[in-house]
């Protein structure tokens, strides 16, 4: 079994790398008693035998995501919510929207995680044989990894923007409510331009669980504010998902929105509210317009690294500033 330099990495216990890099993690230490047949849970990696290894198509590990955050003004979005609240369905819906065309005026330029996007959509296709859309639970394995898009505004030659979406598992969010230590391990949140808190509309509509559901979400946001992972540099979004299940219980969503306004509006840089249904089961269509608007908000806004207006600057220190402000001429993906 492997051991890790990072004290909190559970790899020695359950084989899962804290940073999601598996056997490639630079923090790994070989054990002298290593069982040669031991395997580490990791995303499938191409085996470069006689050929050239291509990128895996799975969510980007931190080191791969840094390729984008280090070269320009990449937008990082953290999605949090309890188990089966609809975070992943939201991202899967975004992929479907790009399959059909541009999203809110943003054109698809590229993605390194198309394989994973297709996998997320599989159990909502006719060919899969399911009778209703299903989504597998997100594994903790992806907690510090990112789905990826590169986009460009339509009808302009504006710079491209890389969007990195960190889909954090519901189990982790649940645990993080209980312990700050779990929160601190969510490295993507500390860099997030946007944190999207997904509240399960179905849970809010259920009297038996709505108060606990709402309470846990409030506590989680409180945790990440306390740790400094989010703050004035962050735009917070409250998304009430599964709008089709919320019917008749909109008051629960209104109450949660009011709580967020009261508790958090003064502590973050922006606060937005959305009601969506990414995969409605009541025969209605997904709320694509709303999801598209939210995506446009993500791409167009960064309080962490706001775009510079170079026309007002007398000089620009190109070597020092290009990385932070994306002023270099980058090749599209």
């Amino acid at each position, binding site marked *: 079994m492997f051991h890790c330099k990072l004290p909190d990495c559970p790899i020695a216990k359950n084989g899962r790398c804290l940073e999601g890099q598996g056997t490639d993690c630079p923090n790994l230490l070989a054990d002298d008693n290593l069982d040669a047949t031991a395997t580490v849970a990791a995303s499938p990696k*191409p*085996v*470069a*035998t*006689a*050929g*050239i*290894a*291509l*990128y*895996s*198509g799975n969510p980007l590990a931190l080191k791969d995501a840094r390729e984008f955050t280090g070269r320009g003004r990449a937008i990082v979005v953290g999605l949090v919510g309890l188990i089966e609240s609809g975070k992943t369905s939201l991202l899967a819906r975004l992929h*479907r929207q*790009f*399959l*059909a*065309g*541009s999203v809110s005026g943003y*054109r*698809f*330029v*590229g*993605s*390194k995680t*198309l*394989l994973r*996007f*297709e*996998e997320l*959509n*599989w*159990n*909502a*296709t*006719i*060919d*899969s*044989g*399911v*009778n*209703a*859309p299903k989504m597998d639970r997100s594994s903790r394995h992806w907690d510090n990894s990112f789905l990826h898009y590169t986009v*460009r505004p339509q009808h302009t030659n504006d710079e*491209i923007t890389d969007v990195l979406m960190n889909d954090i598992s519901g189990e982790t969010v649940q645990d993080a409510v209980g312990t700050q230590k779990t929160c601190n391990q969510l490295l993507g949140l500390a860099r997030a331009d946007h944190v999207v808190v997904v509240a399960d509309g179905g849970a809010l509509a259920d009297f038996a669980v709505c108060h606990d559901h709402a309470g846990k979400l409030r506590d989680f946001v409180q945790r990440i504010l306390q740790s400094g992972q989010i703050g004035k540099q962050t735009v917070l979004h409250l998304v009430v998902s599964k709008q089709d299940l919320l019917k008749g219980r909109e008051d629960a969503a209104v109450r949660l929105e009011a709580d967020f306004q009261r508790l958090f509006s003064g502590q973050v840089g922006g606060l937005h509210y959305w009601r969506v249904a990414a995969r409605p*089961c009541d*025969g*209605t*269509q*997904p709320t694509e317009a709303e999801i598209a608007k939210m995506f446009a908000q993500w791409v167009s806004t960064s309080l962490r690294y706001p775009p510079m207006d170079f026309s007002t600057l007398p000089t620009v220190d190109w070597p020092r500033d290009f990385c932070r402000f994306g002023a270099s001429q980058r*090749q*599209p*993906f």
Partner: protein
Amino acid sequence: MSATPQQLLIAGLADAGKSSFIHAVDDLLHHPAADDALRASGLAEDRIYLEKEKSSFRAGEELERTKRTPLGAPPELLFEDPKSGLKGRLFLPDVSGEIYRDQWVDRIWDKSYADSLKHVSGILLFARADLAASNAELLGPLIDPEKPVEAVKEWDPRNASSQVQLVDVLQFIATHGDFARPLRVGLIFSAWDTMAKMGEQAPTPDAFLRTDWALLDQYLSTNVDTFTTKVYGVSALGGTREEMRELRKLAPSDRVKIVDGKDVSRDLTKPLRWLLKLT
């Protein structure tokens, strides 16, 4: 003019119409319609694959699903432009198209494929006009939680949406390919006769790409520093199995059609001329 042929790669997923096209072009190159038309500049050393199906193609019969090429030279056509003296080599690294699906699934490039890209001047990329670009979604009235489920198919990357696989194939080329940019890509929608049946309602190939293969369209139009694209609709066989009963009475070169914008002709070498920058 240099005697070294310009290398033109054929790419596309399995069953995308690559074999039918190469047979049809082979026929045209050996029977050029005009003095200044592209013509064959000799027979490739290894034509086993082409000759195996030649009689079926000429008879207007449906070609069998192409199996993976056995070890040996990739199928290739050698041709030249009599006016400029420019020579070309149109080749398939893997006739069946499985090589591209394998790249998508296994995330690895064969070294010989990587080497073939080093000298490539253009790509003919194939997609079927009569097959969906994306997997159909279970939506609205199709959702029925009460309906008994017979067998749920587990996720297999091979079943991913066709246009997504093609975009990744192009992204791999953009990232790892060693070629002069921008690279010309002739996008061929095969089985275009199915579109032509719509008559005046039929879209142009460009419009069809925009509406039905939107992800691929976005990718190609936002990566113009890497790829320059032209879109064609092609019917290399001529029609469906039923329609071929009549069409087979015509010579192979009279069955084919190519649509370039609003222009319709039988000159399937048009994309080759464009790739060679002759037009």
